[in-house]
Each structure stands twice: as structure tokens, then as C-alpha cells.
């Protein structure tokens, strides 16, 4: 069991199926939302899960938070089995979740009260709640908005409040399920940099679920999903080197990588998996010199 303890999240052959029914309640179709997913997440890592809509990435996220239970396979979160109902609250407290729609996950009408919602639920003492609220709002840079109404905040600010709400439960891991999908580019940047800072400064494990390729170039490890299966995994460099395979699964690559790929196709001697503008400039300079 030692290996399980070391892992933040460990899934083995995780499967989830649900039945689609017609109006009379007869099963018309069995949908495999997840089939045989294996993932390993070590504490402190920044993990990205990529895939387009309906690929099962949200279903996977909901399993880690025990909002869904697996039909088959095993899943351990922080060493706890998700199938054991006694663990549910402990798992949710260790693996917090941020959802897509910023409006639908803020419960209270005042920012600080919303951040306190999680700690209140797990029975933290009043004095401690105040400390945690202050600390978590500070960690996402929203302390000055503590007594504002969430309705007057921008999308990015709302998502940062939601992250603070999760942080206040002092989780080891935060799962962000398309947390930037409904935001404008500024908000997206805001949220991503807040999350990266949490990962760096507080060593919170991050599971970043998205379909924006640009966001994950700095991840430690990437899983790519399609039709409920993990189809590719590896470092950002490794994954984005396989431009053609990604295209087969209707996924794009970051713009810079795409540009480098097209240039290479046209005959420039560029390496695979260029992720940043600086890298591309450097490689292009090398081409010119040789």
C-alpha cells in the first residue's frame, strides 16, 4: 500500500457508464463516459487533462471529488478509497473542486461568507475560519474585495473567489474543471496565474482540466482524453510533438507549436514540440546560422 500513500491521485482501470433512457424509462444506450482510465498524480504536481467537449474529462473530475462513483476500477485520492462512503467528506476536503460557471458555485452573497462556506461545513472553529478566509483570499489576491457582493465582480474575480473558497478548506489538491472556459482572455490569465502561484508557493497539487492548449504548456505532465479513454500522456513537449495524432482526435496544439510544425513541414530543420515564442525564435536563429 506504500505506493498509494505517496500518490495524491491514483486511478486504475477507472470506468464509468451510465444508461441513456427513452421516455418510457427503457434503456436505449449504455454510454461509457470513462473506460479503463489510469492516472497517477504525485503531491505538488501541476497536471493538465486535455480533451474536447464530451471526452469524459469532467466525469473524471467528478470521480475525484466523489460526486460520481466508479462503475469499475479503483480510485484512491490521498490514499483513501472513493468507494468507501465514510471517506466522502474527507476526500472532498482534501481534493477541492472549482467548476466552470462562476455564478453557479458561489453560495453566499458576500465574498468572505462564501469563502467561509467550506470551512463551516467541515466544522472549523469560528476564529480559525476568520484566519483561513483572510489567508485564502490573500493567496488569490482578492482580499480587498472581501465584503463585496459577488454579483459585481468580473468572471475572473469570481473564479478566484471560488478558488479561495476551496483553499479555505486547506486541501492538498485542487481540481479545476474548465474553470476558465467562460472567461475572457484577461480573466483566464488571472485565474491561471493565481493557480500557478498556489502550486508554486503552497505546493498544492493542481489538476487543470481544459481544452485550451495554450494554458498547459507549463504543466508537469499532460493527459489527453478522447471518448472516455486516455489517448496520450507525457510532458507538454512530448505531447505537443505529436501534432498529427492530436489532429486526428480533433485537438489543436498551441499556436506557436502549430507554426513551428507548419514551418517544419515546409522544410525548415526545426525540432518537434516547440512550446514558447522564445524557443521558436532561438531555433529559427539557429536555422539561419546554419
Amino acid at each position, binding site marked *: 500500500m506504500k505506493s498509494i500513500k505517496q500518490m495524491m491521485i491514483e486511478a486504475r482501470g477507472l470506468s464509468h457508464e451510465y444508461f441513456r433512457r427513452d421516455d418510457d424509462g427503457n434503456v436505449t444506450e449504455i454510454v461509457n463516459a470513462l473506460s479503463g482510465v489510469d492516472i497517477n498524480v504525485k503531491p505538488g504536481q501541476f497536471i493538465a487533462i486535455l480533451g474536447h467537449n464530451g471526452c469524459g474529462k469532467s466525469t473524471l473530475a467528478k470521480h475525484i471529488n466523489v460526486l460520481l462513483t466508479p462503475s469499475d476500477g479503483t480510485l484512491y485520492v490521498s490514499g483513501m478509497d472513493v468507494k468507501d462512503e465514510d471517506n466522502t467528506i474527507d476526500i472532498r476536503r482534501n481534493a477541492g473542486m472549482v467548476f466552470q460557471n462562476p455564478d453557479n458555485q458561489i453560495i453566499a452573497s458576500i465574498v468572505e461568507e462564501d469563502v467561509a462556506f467550506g470551512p463551516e461545513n467541515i*466544522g472549523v472553529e469560528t476564529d480559525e*475560519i476568520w484566519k483561513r478566509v483572510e489567508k485564502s483570499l490573500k493567496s488569490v489576491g482578492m482580499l480587498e474585495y472581501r465584503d463585496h457582493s459577488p454579483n459585481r465582480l468580473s468572471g475572473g474575480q469570481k473564479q478566484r473567489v471560488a478558488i479561495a473558497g476551496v483553499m479555505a478548506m486547506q486541501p492538498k489538491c485542487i481540481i479545476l474543471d474548465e474553470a476558465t472556459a467562460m472567461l475572457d482572455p484577461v480573466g483566464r490569465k488571472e485565474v491561471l496565474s493565481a493557480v500557478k502561484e498556489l502550486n508554486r508557493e503552497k505546493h498544492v497539487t493542481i489538476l487543470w482540466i481544459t481544452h485550451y492548449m495554450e494554458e498547459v504548456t507549463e504543466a508537469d505532465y499532460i493527459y489527453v482524453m478522447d471518448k472516455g479513454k486516455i489517448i496520450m500522456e507525457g510532458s507538454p513537449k512530448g505531447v505537443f510533438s505529436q501534432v498529427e495524432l492530436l489532429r486526428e482526435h480533433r485537438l489543436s496544439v498551441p499556436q506557436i507549436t502549430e507554426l513551428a510544425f507548419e514551418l517544419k513541414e515546409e522544410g525548415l530543420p526545426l525540432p518537434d514540440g516547440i512550446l514558447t515564442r522564445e524557443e521558436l525564435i532561438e531555433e529559427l536563429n539557429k536555422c539561419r546560422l546554419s
Partner: protein
Amino acid sequence: MLRDITIGQYYPADSKIHSLDPRVKLLATLVYIISLFMVDDVFSLLFISVALAAVIVTSKVPFTYIMRGLHSIIILLIFAAAFNIFLTPGIPIFTIWKLNVTKEGIKSAAVMMIRMIYLIAGTSLMTLTTTPNALTDGLEKSLSPLNKINVPVHEIAMMMSIALRFIPILIEETDKIMKAQMARGADFESGSIIKKAKNMVPLLVPLFVSAFRRANDLAMAMEARCYHGGEGRTKMKPLKYQKGDAVAYVLLAAYLAGVIIIKIVTNSIL
């Protein structure tokens, strides 16, 4: 236009009224409403006006904010006033067509309008100075004895605070759907009342669908943050009476006594 409704909207400010315990404010609002319907003479109304003005000034909430809640009831006010003026029996002053305008009618219309306006002003003042969460906390605590007879007080309070939180969001959404449907040729303005009601269907259906979707999302988000009912729950802001609350209770008692005394005195004079 739909954003003018201020009920359930908190106005953050640092005032003595804001820092009062919600239980005090709830009781005070109740007493205030009862007092409004107890009196109908000039002196009592004057006394209530002074008390209301004093509270508004102490609350530091801008006057226009409080009055914004009135926009939504103007039509109701006009109708009620008209009915009162024309249909109250008494000494007629003059007659329009077959309708008698009576002295009693004018008086009761005036009293009724003042009552309604004060009612809105007083209750909006409470919601403007109390966060919805504090409000529901106050209700939860005040009603907690009902727990013994199996009334799910915590659940009701939670539902209320969520409803309050979502009012502005749903209003904004209604606005958006309305515009979207208007852009596709929907007509919400013209036609008879029945036709207008029928025209609301393309507005209401998407609104309900999205409300259910939101409810589903929210329930999931609450569960993800370890919500499991009221059991074993602690509070960030537990309700504790402060010195100011005692003062407020005394003032409230004085107010009630004042209203009753003025009522008795004016009754015996007239």
C-alpha cells in the same frame, strides 16, 4: 428596468444599523410593520416618520437607494389609491361621472399610500443593511425552537439565502433572454393581456430550463464543498448579542410605547 428591484440587495456601509444583530432588526421590522397598520392619525404617522428618518440617517444608506424599491410598486400604489378615493363611502366632496370622491376616501387613500411607502422603505432598509446570510441566520436562530417539532429550519434558511443570492442573477438572465427573443422578433409589448401572457412563454421556458440547470450545478458545487446539512456546522459569524443590540431593544421598546401612547392620547382627544 428589471434591475431596479432592490429587495435582497445589500448595501455595504459601516453604520450602527449595519452592525446590529439580525434578530434585533427582524423583530424591529415586525414591530414597525405592526405599528404602521395600528395607526391612522397624523401625529402617530409623524412620529413614525421621525423614527424612520432617524434610522435611515443612522444607516448611512443613500435615500435614493431606499426609494428605488418603490419603482416596482408605483402602479399598485396608484390603483390602490384610486380604489380608495372612489369607493370609500362617506361625505362626498365632488363627483366625477358616477363616482363620488369622499373626504374619507381621500384620507384613507393618503394613509394607505403612506403605509405602503413606509412599508417598502422599512423592509428595504432591513435588507439593505443586513446581508442575506445574516438575515437567514437570524431567522434560523429565531425559529430554531421549531426544530423540535421537525420543521427543517436550517434547510429552509439555506434555501432562502440561496434564493436571495440568485434573484439578481435570474433577473439579469431574464433581461438577456428577453433581448435575445426580441432580436428574433418576439413581441412582449403589444396586444391584449392574454396575448401578452402568451407571448411570455418563449421567455419563461428558457428561464426555467436555465434555473434548473443552475440549481443542479449549485447543488453539486455545495456538495463538493462538503455541505451535508446543518449537522456539525460551525459559523463564521455566529450570532452574539452586543451592547448595541441591548440599546436597540430599549429604543425599539420606547418606539412601541411611543406609538401606543400617541394612539391612546389622540383617540381620547378626538
